[in-house]
């Protein structure tokens, strides 16, 4: 898989090391690689293009400032950036106090007024690969047992505590925790094969 292959992870780590040495070229390259999936995530969580852009700006500024603190033992660069993005999006959701926000299921209807960033327009092959990959991962998520998929989506895209998720699903806390963990590990396992 393009996003997490070992070779790609090593390239990402090299870029992060260069960014730590204040290399704007490496930063630009990392932006080109990650901005698509990170922006998509922020947009899905926030449901608003302007908010998603602000969140992504915060994330990349954070990557620039904290590149030297990145720990490859803890996660890949991609997962690190994803969790940073999710965290910034949740901060914004909490600030808005949209406690009743629903997950925006379809981003297709939301039009983005501006043109696509030329720097993120990749070759047709890259784009096709990424689409294939997204479709593949979506199918993996959909293949999970319904209760696990639902728990993961609520946990990942929502900004609820595990107590709130348990209340929302009407399930005991222990059951919900186990569903999140089992679902995540199963997803990881399937993604690797």
């Amino acid at each position, binding site marked *: 898989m393009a996003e997490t292959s070992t070779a790609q992870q090593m390239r990402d780590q090299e870029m992060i090391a260069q960014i730590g040495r204040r290399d704007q070229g490496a930063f630009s390259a990392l932006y080109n690689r990650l*901005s698509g999936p990170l922006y998509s995530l922020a947009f899905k969580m926030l449901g608003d293009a302007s908010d998603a852009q602000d969140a992504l700006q915060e994330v990349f500024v954070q990557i620039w400032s904290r590149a030297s603190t990145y720990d490859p033992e803890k996660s890949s660069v991609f997962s690190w950036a994803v969790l940073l993005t999710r965290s910034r999006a949740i901060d914004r959701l909490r600030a*808005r106090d949209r406690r009743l926000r629903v997950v925006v299921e379809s981003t297709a209807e939301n039009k983005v007024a501006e043109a696509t960033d030329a720097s993120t327009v990749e070759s047709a092959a890259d784009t096709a690969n990424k689409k294939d990959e997204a479709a593949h991962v979506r199918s993996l998520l959909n293949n999970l047992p319904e209760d696990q998929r639902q728990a993961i989506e609520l946990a990942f895209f929502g900004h609820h505590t595990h107590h709130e998720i348990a209340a929302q699903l009407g399930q005991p806390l222990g059951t919900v925790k186990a569903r999140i963990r089992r679902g995540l590990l199963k997803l990881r396992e399937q993604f690797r094969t």
Partner: protein
Amino acid sequence: MISEEQQDQAALYVLGLLEPREAAAFESELNANAELRDIARELREAAGTVALTVPPQPPPASLKRRIMREIAIKTEEPTPIPQERVRFGWIPWAIAAALAVFCGLLALDRVRLERELADIRGSDPLMQTTFYTLAPSAPAPADAKATVAWQPGRQSGVIRISNLPAAQPGKDYQLWAVDAEHKDPISAGIIRVDQNGVAQVRFKPVEKAEHVKAFAISLEREGGVPKKEGPILLVGTT
């Protein structure tokens, strides 16, 4: 050997779902346990994978320029002033002073305009009204919709609902105001739709709601509940 309970905690930890106290306790455990750290890493990678399920949405062209500009500003080092410029060192100060005066004039003008706008708002009821469009959320029908006209000054509003089937026996629809100053949504009353799935009612929240961010309709027990329990059917912001 890592117990299932530890793995559960690890999953919640990487998603930031633990309470601060729980997270601190888990971090201590993590520092002392290499196997647990491996599990946490696996779970982080799995969480990263979830992000790939989101439909692709390209960022706008301006965003990279904006970010690169901010990075460049953060990187800029103070440059030494060349000697030949020292003679004219007063020029930037003169420009700054002129700008300060100009900004002061702009600020005064803004205050005047804000006063005028407040007067207009005070005299026109429509200007005091904020409109919210509520969109359906499963299990509501896809064509269900509602519009709220809310007047914060009067603490009252009107909601119009369409295409929402009548609540099943023993249930009622309840309207909620989501206010930034309140932890929980504020009840704004029970709403009953007619046989055509339409309702138009005036409402007043049970508590003062001065910073309403959204309105939502949930399906609750008949007669309503003081705190939201049931699923949200419609929700929307301005």
